[in-house]
């Protein structure tokens, strides 16, 4: 499946089906990320249930502690 993540086109393997899978694929901790799928915020409770579709536009915002 091909989707756009943070402005870049990504080819994803078949087993990446949901937002939760996507975070896992990128090695991101779900607690520290805000996810926007096609301009809608995905609630953290729904990361498992949010299915990815071809040509989705995903924005991932990581919280970082440094300062």
């Amino acid at each position: 499946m091909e989707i756009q993540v943070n402005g870049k086109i990504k080819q994803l393997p078949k087993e990446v089906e949901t937002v939760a899978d996507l975070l896992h694929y990128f090695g991101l901790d779900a607690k520290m990320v805000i996810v926007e799928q096609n301009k809608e915020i995905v609630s953290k409770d729904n990361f498992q249930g949010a299915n990815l579709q071809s040509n989705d536009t995903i924005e991932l915002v990581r919280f970082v502690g440094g300062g």
Partner: protein
Amino acid sequence: MKDDRYSRQVLFSPIGKEGQEQLEAKHVLIIGAGALGTSNAEQLARAGVGKMTIVDRDYVEFSNLQRQQLFSEKDAENRMPKAVAAKERLSAINSGISIFSHVMDVQVEELEKLAPDADVIIDATDNFDTRLLINDISQKHDKPWVYGGCVGSYGLTYTIVPGKTPCLNCLLETVPIGGATCDTAGIISPAVQMVTAHQVAEVLKILVGDEQALHGKLISFDMWNHHYQAIKVNTVKNPECRSCGGNRDYPYLSPESQTKTAVLCGRDTVQIRPPERMERDFDTLRRRLHDGEIKQNPFLLSYTLNDHRMVFFKDGRVLVHGTKDIAEARRLYYKIVG
């Protein structure tokens, strides 16, 4: 001409003469005097914010100078507390404003004293424990605050206005543990400056009362890979949130949530805070330290023995250098302090 020092800012119509007077009457509290803190503070001092309080628990080291813009080599050589060195430089930049500095670790007690008098709080900390504390205090005292964080070439910022926007606890739902820090991923100055450019712009809008101009978005960017995001997060506001919801109980202000030890960002260092407030007497301490090398200034005493270095502050805190292991740091601390 001294009289026209703010003329270019007054010409900027959203601020104007009236806005400039507002700035001069306002008080900004900056938590942290590292990269974000020094950059925020310098911009706001130049802008003529009348009163600034800057708080930090650390002292200047050479590895700070690459990005912490208020400090000099001399500050690093003398191991000056960051809050003290920052105040000195800020006063030289603008002698017409009041600057207060505190060498302290900010916890509930300290914030409860500092926050009520502030008009806005700037997050320039390096950890989420303190941020969630600021978040609860901001809700409790109805003070806006501006989150900022950065690592590598990446940074993000969000402005929290009590009663209007979601709070940090809505956005995070939990205290993040681990993740990349300056320690592991480094940091470049442009990422810092991009975060503080947003923070300062937001603070100026708040101080002149132009809240409509606030961006209202979670903004993030990567300065090396040219990616910029601005996401509306209003829908994340949680009516059940324990920090800003209807039945709030400010979980991060409770005594149980207070940390006595912490690993410092960007440093191979553990901070140990004594269980009770104290003023450390350096003379008594010196009598206990037999071997090793001692260096002292009016604010702190640095003690090196073999591979370990400990820095004792007047307020009782100790920084144990050369380890990230809290248990090991405690062992070294108790060996000396007893």
